[in-house]
């Protein structure tokens, strides 16, 4: 049904066919089909997307366009039906569940729309748990590092509270701090401001800009075009298809 030109031509990501830097995220011919009672539903149709180091890419589109599906496929939370995803040289579509989880923990910071913090851990612990499960950094440094990250997102003073005791915007800051816990080069976020008011959303994007300045690569889904305008590149998705690749910077 879909025909993908690059499919199976490029085998490894390290080799680049053209000039310039290699893409950090390289999606090739991604197709995602959901089996539904009403028949197959093509949520992603032949997605090709390259994101280069230091980019801040905003993925925009209407509700139901396939944004979340795209993000989930990139994070490995969901599997593409076909296609290849190479991130930082790792072909993540070929990793097993556990390998994927560990890889994601170390290389990809994920920020969810509904924050997804662990309710019975305090904010510091919500960050150190990420370092703990990935065995990064010595255990005694975990708390110091978590506090530093909380400081970076501006809520260090709440460190010993549980998530339910702080506001949604603050929770999302914690989620961002957690995403940074293992110092991943790439941060991926699905509607991180979807549950926040306009002002708070702006503050979250301020944080994202800071991260880009630090040299991280960001891929953020939003349906708010105004906010998306703050990214270095916008990518639009409609009905599972990319609507022409936007330009850098």
């Amino acid at each position, binding site marked *: 049904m879909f025909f993908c030109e690059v499919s199976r031509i490029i085998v490894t990501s390290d080799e680049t066919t053209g000039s310039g830097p290699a893409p950090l995220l390289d999606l090739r011919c991604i197709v995602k089909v959901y089996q539904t009672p009403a028949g197959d539903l093509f949520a992603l149709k032949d997605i090709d997307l390259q994101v280069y180091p230091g980019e801040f890419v905003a993925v925009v589109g209407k509700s139901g366009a396939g944004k979340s599906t795209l993000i989930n496929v990139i994070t490995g939370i969901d599997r593409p039906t076909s296609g290849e995803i190479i991130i930082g040289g790792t072909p993540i579509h070929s990793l097993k569940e*556990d390998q994927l*989880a560990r890889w994601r923990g170390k290389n990809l910071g994920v920020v969810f729309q509904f924050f997804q913090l662990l*309710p019975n851990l305090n904010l510091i612990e919500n960050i150190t748990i*990420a370092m703990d499960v990935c065995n990064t950094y010595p255990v*005694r440094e975990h708390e110091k590092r978590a506090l530093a990250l909380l400081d970076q997102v501006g809520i260090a003073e709440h460190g010993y509270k549980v998530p339910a005791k702080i506001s949604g915007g603050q929770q999302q800051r914690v989620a961002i701090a957690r995403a940074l816990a*293992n110092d991943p080069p790439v941060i991926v976020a699905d509607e991180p401001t979807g549950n926040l008011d306009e002002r708070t959303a702006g503050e979250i994007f301020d944080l994202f800009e800071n991260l880009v300045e630090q040299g991280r690569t960001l891929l953020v889904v939003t349906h708010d075009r105004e906010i998306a305008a703050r990214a270095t590149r916008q990518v639009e998705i409609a009905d599972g298809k990319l609507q022409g690749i936007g330009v850098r910077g």
Partner: protein
Amino acid sequence: MKLRTRWRKIIKDIWGNKTRSLLVILSIAVGVAAIGMINNTMTMLRRDLFGAHSRGNPASVSLYISPFDTDLAGAVEAMREVETVQAHRTLSARLIRADGAPAENITLDIVPGFDKVAINRFSIERGAEIPGIRKILLERCSADGLGIDIGDTIIIETEGKQRYSLTVSGIVHDLYLIPYNILGDATGYVSMDTLRWMGEQAYYSRLDVIVAENEGDREHALAVAAQARDRVIETSGYQVYRIAIPGINSDPGEHWGQSQINGFVLVLQVMSVLAIFLSGGLVVNSISAILSQQIRQIGILRSIGAVRSQLVGMYVANVLVLSVAGLAMGLPLGMLGAWWLTNFAAGYLNFDVTAITPDPTVTILQVAVGLVMPIVVAFFPIVSGTRISVYDAIYQQGLAGDRQEGGIDGLLAKIRNLHPPVMLSLRNTFRKKARLAFTLITLTLAGAMFMSVFSTRASLTGQINQIARYVAFDASLSVTPGLTRASVERTAMRIPGVTVAEGWVSSGGILMRADGSEGDEIQVYGIPYNSVTIDPLLIDGRWLQADDTNGVVINDDFLEHAPETAVGSSITVKIADQNRTYEIVGIVSKHLSGSRVYMTYDTFSKATGRSNQADMVRVRLDADKIGSSAEQKRLAAEIEDRFQDAGMSQSSSQTQDEIFGSFTGPFDIILMVLVIMAGLLAVVGGLSLAGTMGMNVMERTREIGVLRAVGANNQAVRQVVVIEGVVVGLISWLLAVAVSGPAGVALAGAVVYAVFKAPVNFQYSFEGLAIWLVVIVLIGVFSSLAPARSAARLTVREVLDYE
């Protein structure tokens, strides 16, 4: 060093679910404690009771012989088959209380040399080692029970109504007696010289024997005793009245209560295994709840890099923390229980506890059950619960929730017409099938066990009452040989109030084998065919008739040694040195006191040449019912006086009550503990139901919100939860009823066999069924009250916050 965050999460998870965690810890503790209590008690019992018992050289078999001296004992001891013998003289007497309290039965025990007792060696606790003339040593239980101590003077009344003052000069500890606190018979030790001084003749009446080999073999011990009788005792001109293995159904060399103790321990073991099953169920129940409650958290953890083994490890650690806590609680609790039970047993069975120490192998078993079992049973739920993909964990859970809401909407539309709480409760009950199954299994087990305990009780009591049918008198008394039946009955009838007096004759006999050799000892009774003091329960054939000349009735005990015997077959019995052949016309139920043959007076007269005589008299105040304990006692004293005054008896009378005192005492304890254990099971079952209800309420937070949104008040919300609890209880009751039959047969069978060495005559207890119905409804209500209250407390706002 800082604790890793994931371990801190575990602690917070446990702390955050305080109630459920506590339930699991408690149930593990109960299982561990039960194992510790029972097995440590067993170990201490083996060391301090059975060990001490066998160190004192227990007798294999006792022979009751016509008056003999130590020469005869020596001759028996010289037999190759015999290892050791010990002669005893036992004399029944009355202990007259100075304070006017009723006289007590006391048995005076005389041995040839107090310092060289070879068999059933008692020990001197305090005071003199050898009773001097006009001195007596008292068994410590008797001394304690009677409040008598060294230096006190006691008055002994012999059967000839003569009274003698004896000074207590020492306290003896004798493990081989059924103690005073159980039997109500005191025991004292005097010298033969004292006995002579009391006007009694100096002779021995009982010979205890330890066989040289096959010490525990019942048949062998009886065979050796028969050989001693035939080759040594009777050839020397003495008569053997009775051969008996000491104890209540014990094997040779065993403690007198061994069978009862075994039965008791068996029941406790069954209960502890059950407690372990139940706590295992609770662990599974609880960990499943945590897992289902934490599906999203599992997804989050995976999304930030946790691998499967870490997740499994975390939840295993969760269970491990609970197990360690349960074990830490259960170990000392079990030791405490063992301390209590051992001391209780020591007081009851009259032995000394040397030390309360845990048995290392028991501790290992407890650790295995407390630590390993929970992890093993929780492993499958953990492995399958952590298998969920990140996608499903984070996204699908919400979808499932939405679907449930749809269901509720549909239901809410429907329940406008029906009684809402009932409808909702029923629907809830069946939603979480696995969890429901676990709760049901737990409650069903508890219920089935509870009912089985009651059936066991009914069967045991039934079995005991069956024996009572063969001693259907208020009092009975042995009379002087040679008296006529008519004079004996007449004398008895003259006692005011007596409406029934029957003279019975009896004789020892030997069952002859087909090859003409001598077989087992049996007891032969010549009785009125229409006797009122026996209420035979026929298991085959018919009872005696007036015109029976050759027909006899045997008891079921008879069949133990001659299983091929049946109604219609004939037996040859040697009575008064003559072989006689009889036809069996009927078989009656167990007596638990050896093989018996009942025949009419006439048949008996022909066999023995003793016509119209009586050996004992059995009396009743009322032909229709047995008198009360007090009435029996009064009558027994009266008949004893009358016959002694008339010179017609020198024996002590017996009441039906006394005969049963020794039987029922231990059973009462078994039954009491059974009921306590069943109650414990009910508690664990209730805890499990409470846990489940709590989980259900939590999961249904949103549903409750919807209920409230449509205007349900506190009362209605509580009702929904409580009805669900009761419905689960009732379902478990139905299942338990189904299981209680076979479970009851198994438990009652095991207990009865252990105690009586006889198959159970099973009686199902509908009483237990009814009681459990009440209990289960109460459990249903009470275990759902707390969850119901917390459900009613939820406000609509909290409900919306929940997701």
